[in-house]
């Protein structure tokens, strides 16, 4: 479904990604692991089009490497940005409405649906998102992204800054969403252990290049790779 070849991207004169190749299949969960500064966030930004990039990014048969961010959303890719990026001054409900910005017609059913999945958000629907806890904001950011009914959901370090128990709950929710809706997930994570447990395949990113790739289960079992790249 998503096929990336020779992806180069960066910020102004500084190139961060030096030619990445990776794929995400229909309904698949893929994780990109890597240390700080490896280029994980840049990879997601390059797909969403919030930074300029070179190379081929094929999504459902269309090359989107020149598409603007809003066109990428319309094509069916939604991103949960790092640090959640909720609209802190807007209410929970308005955040979800904004998530459905590219859609036409009534979106109330979708809002009810995600309030059903995340009951804590339903209780706080009239509250400003900025008053939510970190875990709640992360749930809101995911629900907001799902409001556009994406075929592929990009999540940028969803575990960042969350307590371990909340992180576990979050990954559980992501795996369940994937199973029930068939939405493919591309996760970027530092928390290798948890991410590999829900993913089918994984790539390890090192300073803008893919160092290792393979089945999540294999990577999780390979002690050499774990000590060399994943620090677990």
């Amino acid at each position, binding site marked *: 479904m998503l096929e990336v070849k020779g992806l180069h991207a960066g910020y102004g004169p500084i190139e961060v990604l030096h030619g990445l190749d990776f794929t995400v299949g229909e309904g698949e969960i893929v994780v990109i692991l890597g240390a700080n500064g490896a280029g994980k966030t840049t990879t997601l930004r390059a797909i969403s089009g919030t930074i300029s990039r070179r190379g081929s990014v094929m999504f459902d048969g269309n090359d989107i490497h020149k598409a603007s961010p*809003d066109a990428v959303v319309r094509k069916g890719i*939604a991103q949960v940005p790092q640090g959640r*990026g909720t609209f802190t001054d807007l209410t929970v409900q308005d955040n979800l409405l904004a998530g459905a*910005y590219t859609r036409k017609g009534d979106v109330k059913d979708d809002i009810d649906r995600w309030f059903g999945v995340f009951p804590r958000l339903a209780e706080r629907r009239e509250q400003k998102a900025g008053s939510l806890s970190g875990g709640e904001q992360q749930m809101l950011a995911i629900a907001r992204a799902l409001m*556009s009914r994406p075929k592929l959901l990009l999540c940028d370090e969803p575990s960042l800054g969350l307590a371990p128990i909340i992180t576990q709950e979050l990954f559980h929710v992501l795996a369940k969403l994937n199973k029930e809706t068939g939405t493919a997930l591309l996760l970027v994570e530092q928390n290798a252990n948890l991410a590999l447990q829900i993913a089918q395949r994984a790539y390890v990113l090192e300073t803008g290049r893919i160092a290792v790739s393979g089945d999540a289960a294999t990577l999780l079992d390979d002690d050499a790779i774990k000590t060399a790249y994943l620090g677990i």
Partner: protein
Amino acid sequence: MILAFDTELFIQRLVDGLSKGSIYALLALALVVVFRGSGQLNFAQGEMALVTTYIGSTLTLAGWPVWLTVLACAVTGFVMGGAVERFLIRPMEAKSPFAVVVVAIGLFLGFNSISAAVWGVDARDFPSLFPNQPDDFFNLLGANVRWERVGIFFVLLGIGALLYLLFTRTKIGLAMRAVANTHESAQLVGIRVGRVLVFGWGLAAAIGAVAGCLIAPSAGLSLSMMFGLFIYGSAAATLGGLDSPLGAVVAGLALGLLDSMIIGYVDIIGGDLLLTVILGLILLVLLVKPSGLFGSTRVERV
């Protein structure tokens, strides 16, 4: 000395204050709409309104009815504001945020000079939207209240209500609030941030254009008409909290009332010291509450 409270005089000062305050509030609203979207203070907001008001005066001389003229001014303002954002502000901001301030000051001077070149330096008449003959007033508790003054106040209320509906009930309003909050996330939900900014600048200039048309009949249309108003307007925007439309309206009306009451009741301050005293009061408020009366202090839980 007998201290008798003159109700009639008080009501007149009240109405004067509300009417002046409405103009300040409209300009403050324009500034706030721009600031929320792009985080910039448009120093040229007043002078953009000056140009549209001059265009309006030409239209009325050509025989256009006043209401149509005001509408045409608002539309012209909308196009002008949108174009300024798209073709001057945005390319400059990409290069350097400081350059935007210089551009805005350049626009301030430029629009004023263009007005001088096209319409000359002599003051012009501008017809009022409301009945404005010497005997067009009604009686309120013994005071003669001019329709024109009250009309200005109601225009402010109408525009305020429309803005409220726009922000809370429409998709573009939701997009404007999202963009005001964070550009990156707005992009990621598929909002075309650039278009929203153009719309915001256009809307602001349209509001400014209406303010210009409302004040011109009593102030007289001249090149310096907007200077003082802009100072009051930006003071009101700051006092209300730069990102709060409600704050702009409340603070604008408060400044108008303060202005009119100080002139009326505090002889020592009079006309010359007035602005200084008012700006001093605003400074005091901001020392206690730096985000302004209604501005949001961004507190985020993590």
